[in-house]
């Protein structure tokens, strides 16, 4: 049984890590699932870092009550946080890397290594590359096309675990374990709609002649897919050299 709304994926990823009494950093706080997991597991302090004001507010709403003395929601760019060097025992990044373009991923890996104590831990949970023939792959491709049209870079990059291991190794992190969290990944209607929402948001920034068809295609894909179980979510645990 997970606690306080913590998904089983988070509970499973933290199960073999020392969390109690530790200073933790959740990189990319999202809606606070891992922050809640770290607090529930007895973290002494959790820095929930996000560059999204809505996410910051969501995390405060989600877990702020009763944990204010142990929680700091930090609105910051993960490539340059205000956290002190060598200050964090355990870093977590749950579902973060897939929304980082490769150049950003490298900068984030460097920053996480900077703030972590020598010998500190890192848990990276992310999605393996979805099968090419999966229906959701078409939605993700559309999301990336819309993002590229607006920002010049993709919204999503699915890194194989070996690639993430190599990127973090460049910054002093050594893999301690690699386990499968979800197999298959359930892409529910709510998940698909959230991805379609990203497409719609990008589409709104484009000329109607381009944006409207993109948004319509996203909606059509969501309707056509309904839901799908495909791909895999993995968890890598690292230790920082030193």
């Amino acid at each position, binding site marked *: 049984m997970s606690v306080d709304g913590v998904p089983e994926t988070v509970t499973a990823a933290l199960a073999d890590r020392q969390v109690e009494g530790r200073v933790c950093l959740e990189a990319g706080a999202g809606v606070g699932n891992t922050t809640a997991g770290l607090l529930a597991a007895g973290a002494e302090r959790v820095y929930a870092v996000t560059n999204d004001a809505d996410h910051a507010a969501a995390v405060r709403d989600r877990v702020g009550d009763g944990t204010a003395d142990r929680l700091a929601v930090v609105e910051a760019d993960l490539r340059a946080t205000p956290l002190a060097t060598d200050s964090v025992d355990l870093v977590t990044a749950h579902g973060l890397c897939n929304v980082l373009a490769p150049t950003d991923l490298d900068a984030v890996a460097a920053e996480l290594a900077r703030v972590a104590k020598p010998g500190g831990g890192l848990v990276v949970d992310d999605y393996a590359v979805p099968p090419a023939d999966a229906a959701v792959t078409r939605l993700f491709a559309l999301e990336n096309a819309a993002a590229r049209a607006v920002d010049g870079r993709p919204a999503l990059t699915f890194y194989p675990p070996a690639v993430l291991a190599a990127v973090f190794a460049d910054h002093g992190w050594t893999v301690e374990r690699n386990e499968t969290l*979800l197999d298959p990944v359930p892409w529910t209607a709510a998940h698909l709609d959230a991805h379609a929402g990203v497409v719609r948001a990008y589409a709104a920034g484009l000329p109607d002649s381009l944006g409207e068809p993109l948004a319509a295609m996203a909606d059509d894909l969501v309707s056509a897919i309904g839901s799908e179980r495909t791909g895999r979510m993995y968890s890598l645990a690292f230790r920082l050299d030193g």
Partner: protein
Amino acid sequence: METRVLGETGQESTVLTFGTIALNWLEQEGANQMVELVLDHGVNHFDVAPAYGDAELKLGPKLRQYREDIFLGCKTQEREYEGAARKIDRSLDRLGVDTIDLYQIHGLEYESELDTITGDGGALEAIREARDDGKIDHIGLTSHGDPGLILDAVDRIDDLETVMFPLNPVVAGKDDGEYDYEAVLERCEAEGIGTLGIKAFAKGSWPPTDELAEADRPYANWYEPVDTPEVIRERFDFAAAQGLDTVVSPGDPKLVKMVLDAASRSEGMDEARQRALIEEARHDDSPVPEQLHH
């Protein structure tokens, strides 16, 4: 079919228990055929209750024919001595057997009921007396209610040997204590109490009767069940993988064959797959409908 040790009862039950409420919806000949089908799949644990319409009567003929092959669970919703004693004898009479292997306090819902059951003149006195008289062998409890209340019962009934409670991916993914049947499972495992899982095949509550009249429900279950072979197999594997000693089949005869097939062919379920089912259902409403109050 795989068998598992049922707590410390000394019984090795098949991982599937036949919920004989399904017999209530069949004519006697159909009931006989269903029992034969269940036995052909190797199932050795049957569960019945006086509350299941004519199930006791319809189970009787085949039960008597195959008595040695069947570990028989029965139940009582009576809370006081007189009623429970009467119901034990009535079930023995309707089933046409001398002994019930496992007799369960049925559908515990309220702390006050537990007080009555365990107090002077309570049902437990009658059940223990029946055990001393050789009418029953083991004592159990069933509940769809508050897991905390089940744990209280475990605390207060020191000769409790089995507990029956709901477990499925939706319940497993819920966080609040209201659905923490996993705590019950862990406690039972620690104390050597046998565990029987129900509602493994529950999809959700039926729509309100103004949207779907009771007569129009396609299944006799008091919850809406999952009903495709693939999903039934998945739900069975999930429930069996949680560590339950046995999983009880759903109440509609149309589903029993699919569940028998699932249990016979089960190859287990790894943790990533279990988590995937929980994750998929994480925001669903609980498919354990509110208990029918009595």
